[in-house]
């Protein structure tokens, strides 16, 4: 037998008039109960730490806690802009993330268009299988692999450059400019396949009769791509591009942490790695929190702007 009917289903009309609120709770309490675990986790692990941000305005000492540590106002935010090191870190973050965002937007679109020209489904599927894979490997694994591949002493990349082109070994992970180059290229390499999926879906949604009509009009394949395929992809391109705005201060902590070393701090150290070292290695908790808060506030503003833009131009909604 089924369990008895739920009160929410066959609730007889209340005899006494009941407040809306109480009736609401009586009907929906099982729903609140279902959400309770998620609510508790969000309160404890997402909302509680936000109160901890007060330490950005203190000289926080672990043994004094939030209530007895000395208040210092905006001192840490001032130091953020006074130290050459932290100003450089902000620049590094911007340079690396903007390069990543621009290339990370253009490359997948280009490859999706090229892949669309491959008619044999077997080859197409094979290519897709291979290019999606790196997305799922962590930067720990890929960092380990890249350090081996790019080694100056006999890494396979330097060996090929020397054997085939006679180029002197390049110190990829020890020279600041090369480091930035490696960071951007390897990030594109890891993510372009996965980023492409959304565009392939848009291309697959194009009505075939549009191509037929274009062909009857004598359009070449390139013209068809420019006049039929690209316009069909445009809405999703706009959404992806605007949503990337919120990532301007995210240069990719996992990747940089696993690839960098003190030799490239001047050009490769970014906000998140700087925060980690200030807090965990130097124990400068308050300063690290202030830097993190600075980043969070700007990112928050950018995300709000990007969501509004994406909603306006691409009719995108979060939920």
């Amino acid at each position, binding site marked *: 037998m*089924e*369990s008895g009917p739920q009160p929410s*289903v066959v609730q007889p009309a209340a005899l006494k008039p009941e407040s809306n609120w109480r009736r*609401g709770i009586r009907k*929906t309490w*099982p*729903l*609140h109960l*279902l959400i309770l*675990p*998620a*609510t508790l*986790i*969000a309160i*404890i*692990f*997402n*909302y*509680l*730490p*936000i*109160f901890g*941000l007060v330490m950005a305005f203190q000289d926080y000492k*672990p043994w004094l806690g939030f209530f007895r540590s000395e208040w210092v106002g905006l001192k840490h935010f001032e130091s953020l802009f006074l130290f050459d090191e932290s100003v450089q870190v902000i620049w590094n973050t911007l340079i690396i993330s903007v390069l990543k965002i621009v290339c990370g937007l253009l490359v997948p679109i280009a490859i999706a268009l*090229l*892949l669309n*020209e*491959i008619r044999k489904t077997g080859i197409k599927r094979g*290519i897709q*299988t*291979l290019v*999606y*894979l790196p997305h*799922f*490997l*962590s930067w*720990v*694994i890929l960092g*380990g*692999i*890249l350090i*081996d591949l790019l080694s100056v*002493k*006999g890494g396979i990349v330097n060996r090929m450059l020397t054997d085939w082109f006679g180029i002197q070994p390049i110190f990829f992970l020890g020279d600041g400019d090369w480091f930035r180059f490696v960071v951007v290229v390897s990030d594109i*390499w890891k993510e372009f396949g996965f980023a492409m999926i959304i565009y392939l*879906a848009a291309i697959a949604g194009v009505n075939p009769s549009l191509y037929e009509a274009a062909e009857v009009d004598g359009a*070449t*394949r390139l013209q*068809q791509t420019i006049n039929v395929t690209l316009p069909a992809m445009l809405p999703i391109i706009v959404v992806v591009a605007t949503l990337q705005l919120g990532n301007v201060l995210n240069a990719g902590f996992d990747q940089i*942490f*696993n690839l960098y070393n003190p030799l490239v701090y001047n050009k490769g150290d970014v906000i998140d790695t700087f*925060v980690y070292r200030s807090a965990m290695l130097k124990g400068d*908790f308050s300063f*690290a*929190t202030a830097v*993190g808060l600075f980043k*969070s506030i700007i990112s*928050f503003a950018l995300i709000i702007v990007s969501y509004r833009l994406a909603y306006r131009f691409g009719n995108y909604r*979060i*939920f």
Partner: protein
Amino acid sequence: MYHKSTGYKVFSLFNHTFLIILSLLCILPLMHVLAVSFSGKSAATANIVNLWPVDFTWESYEKTIDNPAFVRALFYSVYRTVLGTAIGMAVIIFAGYALSKRNAAFKSRNVYMWFFVFTMLFSGGLVPGYILITELQLINTIWALVLPGALSVYNMILLMNFFRTIPAELEEAALIDGAGLFRILFSVHLPVSTPALATITLFTLVGHWNSWFDGLIYMMDTKKYPLATFLQTVVVQQDFSKMSINPEDMENLSQRTVKAAQIFIGALPILLVYPFLQKYFVKGIVLGAVKE
């Protein structure tokens, strides 16, 4: 027809070549590491290994398995992955189901949605999060790796959107049969959502397996490092300062072939679930992007 023109044929030839090389570039680094891991020590040191092992041997894998620190980390990873995925899925299934109800039937739904979405937009960051875990005395416990990330709002919304595509008639029919809220979840929503559940479960599994930073900051006791953290500290950074490893294992750990073997073992579970993953994630991504 365009595809018969000479210009297009030339383009097509270049296009095929280019894309095939590009896709091989995505897998060759891994092949190289695999080849190094199966090569003899001297061949690897002499840098003559390319894509095929030289002096084939299982030695590096034997050394890896003989290292108790590595095996311990491997088991700890399995533990956190299984526990973390089970808890994480339960949390988002229940919440996603409740939030899939219409606004009319569940007035507080919008309040909840903004409450959860806000956590995606703003966070306390590294230090306050770390202090919280310390204050809750979760340092060195499995819960430090499982609980803070147990609510994936993104996955919850993905699942909620999927539940919302289930025809209302199914639920109404179950209601008439006298099924309650929980019964409808288990006999209507979950069975028809297998693709979405499979996608999200696999993503959660992969996320836990790959997760390394939480282990690094929350585990003072290096014996409780999950494999990803072990690999990060010992193999990638070659930082032995925190570990108590006997000299023989330490020498092995800095050997190139052994490093390659450990990296490959770290990647192996991902490679094993990848075929299943690929079957579902394309749908999952499109589902997440195109919603109404």
